[in-house]
């Protein structure tokens, strides 16, 4: 699956999980859920250092959970809903895999009678 040079590669489920396995990062996600916010405004919600907040933002960005946009010297962040697509991903793989298994099983259970070689 090709991805653009600057898009975060589709992060694996474990990357997304690790990114969410932190209450501060979940709080950040809540903040940007409905509106795009600059880094400073996000940091202002926390007692953490700006650097710590910036690290959390990086983790979330790498997991594909948020999108970063630069406006002059400011960095703005917003939620990237497409990243939370486990259902879709699960099924995108599940059905094709399942049908391939079905094919193998049926053809094994019902070998062609009188099949003349390959």
């Amino acid at each position, binding site marked *: 699956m090709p991805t653009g040079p600057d898009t975060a590669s589709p992060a694996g489920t474990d990357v997304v999980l690790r990114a969410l396995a932190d209450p501060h990062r979940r709080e950040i996600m809540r903040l940007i859920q409905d509106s795009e916010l600059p880094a400073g405004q996000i940091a202002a919600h926390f007692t953490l250092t700006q650097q710590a907040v910036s690290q959390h933002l990086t983790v979330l960005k790498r997991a594909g959970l948020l999108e970063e946009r630069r406006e002059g010297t400011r960095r703005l962040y917003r939620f990237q809903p497409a990243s939370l697509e486990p259902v879709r991903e699960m099924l995108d793989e599940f059905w094709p895999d399942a*049908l391939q298994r079905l094919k193998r099983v049926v053809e094994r259970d019902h070998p062609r009678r009188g099949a003349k070689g390959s």
Partner: protein
Amino acid sequence: MTEPVTASVRIAAPPEVVFPYFTDPALAVKWIAKAAYLDARPGGTLAIDVRGNPARGEYVVVDPPHRVVFTWGIEGREDLPPGSSTVEVVLRADGDESVVTLTHRDLPSEDQRRSHWEGWAEFLGLLAEQAGSSPA
């Protein structure tokens, strides 16, 4: 609504042979899940496990050997509750083979995912924390 998930496969057996694999639990367990409970008649229950997720639904159309339709959802998933999406399987004869086409419709739209994301993310995050995933 989002684009449906589709998948298809050609099988070297006629639809009459393939169809029961969608309706007979003893055959379904060979390919779709380790455990399957299937009551293949309209209104009948379908319950299988998909990668550890409890998928639940009801048969809507059972029309051997060409078409079977069932609803589908995952127990405990607010964004895809049981009955919320629909899977249609069509088996078309091609010579003495079958072409099986599966279409999974009515999956949650982006807006719905978005409105549910918080609970889901919270849940996943807490799970991951409890499982001891080290913060990245």
